[in-house]
């Protein structure tokens, strides 16, 4: 049933530029525009947060103010955008009917449920059939979490971040900011001050999470910033696979998205984190679109493994470097990425692999596709600390250019402080070869079909890391995103 649903859903995708460009007309509870201590306090009180949480937010806010005053907004990335006016953004927007927290799915605004149906999220019963637990974050507030009970029996906690703050303060206190401190960077500080919700997952020792956990993010209200925060903890020997999807409606103005994701993989555990990022990319003329400034980082302890897979087709600007701190001996970090920029999209994305423990291994496979006037940059760091005896890294970055107005850039930073390390980095940049195209065209495929087939094949190394349904969606997304770029 699920696969039927998925197939019909994806077949609907063709012939549309941006399927998710609808606006859901529901009442929202908006805090006034602008950022100050009162807004931070307001967000905290709306979430009924304990004092320590507010204190942490305020520390972050004060730090961010310093950064903002000293003009420390990062400028090193290869992206151009008009200066963001941080006082012209709504920092809190909650769907009104949710302010009285829903007791069950029946309490959820039907119009919102309709939205999720349009999105094709298998919420409610369909969720069960799909075997996915969904935490849907709608304009920063977690709407409903399915499967909580079933997971609870295994001791797995999967809930909204606000609930975690209220119900599992010890875990949150212990791990919040331990991988991405509020002082990490400009956007991480901003997030720490004003984050409104997000997802929290905790997998107890030795437990293999039987289903894939999933969060769906959507920005609905105009001029809203979305600042969600995700914290996932895999205790010793645990395993979890986590999926994240995102969409936003058509807006001719830009929307700011500054999220933080922290992963903690304790000894012998494994976290697999997959993202399909399909925020609104802006119009083909380059108007509007989401500014996606995201800090994602995981810490892998002894024998632990963290694997990031991302398919980035949306956003006007993507600024994102999912990283792994390989702290424990024998820990493993992986990064698989396909990033696509079409029209006037810009992406500066990559990863950081920080090797600290002995015998640590990391693998990076990054594929960049540029079309239209898009600019796509791979920026990655591999750092081998003096303590990282026998560390191994293999990096492969490939870029594909479609059309003569786009750009593809590769900027790896390889920093080695231990002579026993082995590092290999290779990269290539080219266009889709005429010979390959000719071969497929000679067999009756249209130019567009041929391109799609070649690009999907070329991206396979990354797609095969995705859970099955996501892989199908990713391939369709590439096709839609590239419409008009070929021929």
């Amino acid at each position, binding site marked *: 049933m699920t696969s039927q649903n998925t197939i019909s859903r994806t077949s609907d995708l063709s012939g549309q530029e941006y399927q998710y460009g609808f606006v859901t007309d529901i009442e929202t509870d908006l805090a006034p525009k602008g950022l100050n201590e009162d807004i931070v306090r307001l967000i905290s009180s709306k979430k009924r947060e304990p004092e320590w949480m507010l204190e942490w937010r305020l520390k972050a806010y004060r730090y961010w103010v310093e950064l903002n005053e000293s003009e420390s907004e990062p*400028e*090193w990335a290869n992206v151009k955008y008009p200066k963001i006016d941080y006082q012209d953004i709504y920092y809190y927007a909650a769907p009104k009917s949710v302010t009285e927290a829903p007791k069950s799915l029946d309490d959820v605004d039907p119009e919102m449920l309709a939205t999720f149906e349009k999105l094709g999220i298998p919420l409610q019963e369909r969720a069960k059939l799909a075997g996915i637990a969904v935490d849907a974050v709608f304009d920063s507030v977690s709407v409903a979490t399915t499967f909580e009970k079933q997971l609870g029996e295994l001791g797995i906690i999967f809930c909204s971040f606000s609930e975690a703050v209220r119900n599992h303060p010890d875990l949150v206190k212990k791990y919040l900011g331990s991988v991405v401190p509020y002082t990490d960077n400009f956007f991480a500080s901003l997030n720490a001050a004003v984050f409104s919700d997000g997802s929290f997952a905790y997998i107890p020792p030795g437990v293999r999470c039987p289903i894939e956990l999933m969060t769906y993010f959507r920005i609905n209200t105009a001029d809203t910033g979305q600042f969600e925060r995700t914290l996932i903890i895999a205790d010793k020997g645990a395993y979890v696979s986590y999926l994240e999807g995102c969409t936003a409606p058509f807006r001719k103005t830009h929307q700011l998205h500054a999220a933080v994701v922290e992963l903690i993989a304790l000894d012998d555990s494994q976290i697999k984190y997959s993202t399909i990022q399909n925020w609104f990319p802006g119009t083909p003329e380059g108007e509007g679109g989401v500014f996606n400034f995201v800090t994602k980082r995981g810490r892998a302890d002894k024998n632990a493994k963290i694997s990031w897979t991302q398919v980035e087709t949306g956003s006007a600007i993507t600024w994102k470097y999912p990283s792994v701190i390989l702290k424990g001996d024998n820990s493993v970090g992986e990064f698989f990425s396909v990033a696509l920029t079409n029209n006037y999209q810009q992406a500066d994305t990559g990863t950081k692999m920080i090797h600290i423990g002995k015998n640590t291994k990391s693998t990076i496979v990054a594929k960049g596709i540029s079309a239209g006037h898009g600019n796509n940059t791979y920026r990655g760091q591999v750092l081998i600390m*003096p303590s990282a*005896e*026998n560390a191994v890294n293999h990096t492969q970055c490939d*870029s594909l*250019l*479609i*059309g*003569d*107005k*786009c*750009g*593809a*850039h*590769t*900027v*790896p*930073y*390889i*920093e*080695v*402080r*231990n*002579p*026993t*390390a*082995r*590092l*290999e*980095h*290779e*990269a*290539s*940049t*080219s*266009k889709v070869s005429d010979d390959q195209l000719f071969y497929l065209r000679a067999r009756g495929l249209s130019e567009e079909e041929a391109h799609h087939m070649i690009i999907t094949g070329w991206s396979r190394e990354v797609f095969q890391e995705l859970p099955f349904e996501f892989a199908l969606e990713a391939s369709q997304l590439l096709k839609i995103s590239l419409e008009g770029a070929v021929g």
Partner: protein
Amino acid sequence: MTTLTAPPASVEKYASAFESLDDSDFPQWLITTRLQAWANFSDLGIPIKRRGNELWKYTNLRPLADAEFEYGTIGLVSLDEIRSNGPWDDAWDTVVVVDGNFSAQLSNLHGAAGLTAGSLAEAISAGTDDVESQFASLAGRESYAFTALNTAFAGDGVYLGVAAGAQLETPVHVVFVSSDLAASRVTYPRLLVSAGENSSFTIIETYINLAGPAQLTVPVVEFFVSRGARIRHYRIQMENEKSFHIGTTRVDQKGDSSFSSTSFAVGALMGRNDIHTQLGEPGAECTLHGLYMTSGRQQQDQEISTTHAMPNCTSNQFYKGILSGKSHAVFSGKVVVERDAQKSVANQKDLNLLLSRGVRIDAKPSLEIFADDVKCGHGATAGHVDRDTLFYLRSRGVDEDAAKAILVRGFAAEMLDEFKPAALKEFVERITDGRIETLLAESDTLGTV
């Protein structure tokens, strides 16, 4: 001179020397150029900023900015000192520059047809060929502290003109030597090479340092490569182990020209080899290769870049490094393919052999591509010689020291083979063998892990 509001502190140290420059012999255009360069340097200062300073991300210039260097004294150097400290062949046309000034006495020129080689100051005074329009047009007017600093003090150096169609059979050797004086001094070597259409020649550029204390050498070299010209270039950097060497080479290539360069960087406490080639017309090709070796607390910094501005050009960057002791090497390679440069082919590679704990390598091989019909690739590696490899040689009866030397020498061989003139090849091999002894003496991981 020009008055400016509060120049950076590091500028002050160079100000009095600049103010006392004697420019009475120079044409007005050079005086103007120098003034502009000084104003530029005064604005910029030594680039010591640690944040957002991408061009100097891995090299801290604070020690250089803090050090004091005298300017203007010229010492004496004998021909024997030059011969025994650098590559030498009597058959080569050799131009010698002592402490920044051309020395007719030490130079050894055979009057090859089509070659104009001699003092840059004389070429400027005489208005030789295009020297006025060429000088500082590639390096000296842009917003970069070290080319500005050199240009502000530019007076003498070497001018090398090769006539259109001339095919020089023997290499031209340009030696920049720092004399054996007691003081820490700064020199600004300058070389301008103008290669006529379809000319062909080999040029060797050597830096020798006979001084005891730390010297600062800030060379600037400009190559103008006309249509169809072919240049084989070698760069030998042999500064003393306390010195700073911050070299900048700028190459402008016209259609169907070829510029092929191999660098050999072993000297200086901090050596920087910054080379940029501009492939400005269709069909140009460039090859930038090099070998760097670091030991003790040395640092070698390679800043290698090529711009493909027009279609059908080819570029190739390939560097190899051997690091031992507590040394540090940086490779920053960049290939830019501009919008119109279709059918570009570019390759970039940096391979490093790490011999001991405490070494540090930072490699940043980057590509910026704006044209779609291109073939560009790059690669970078860092690794060590493992136990098994050493065991293989040992089990064939090679003693441990010899086996280690063979392995390191084998890694370097590919680059050493590029040095074609016999006397030059003999020189770099001799120096490399000596260096390998030092590298191995400081090695604590080779074949042990």
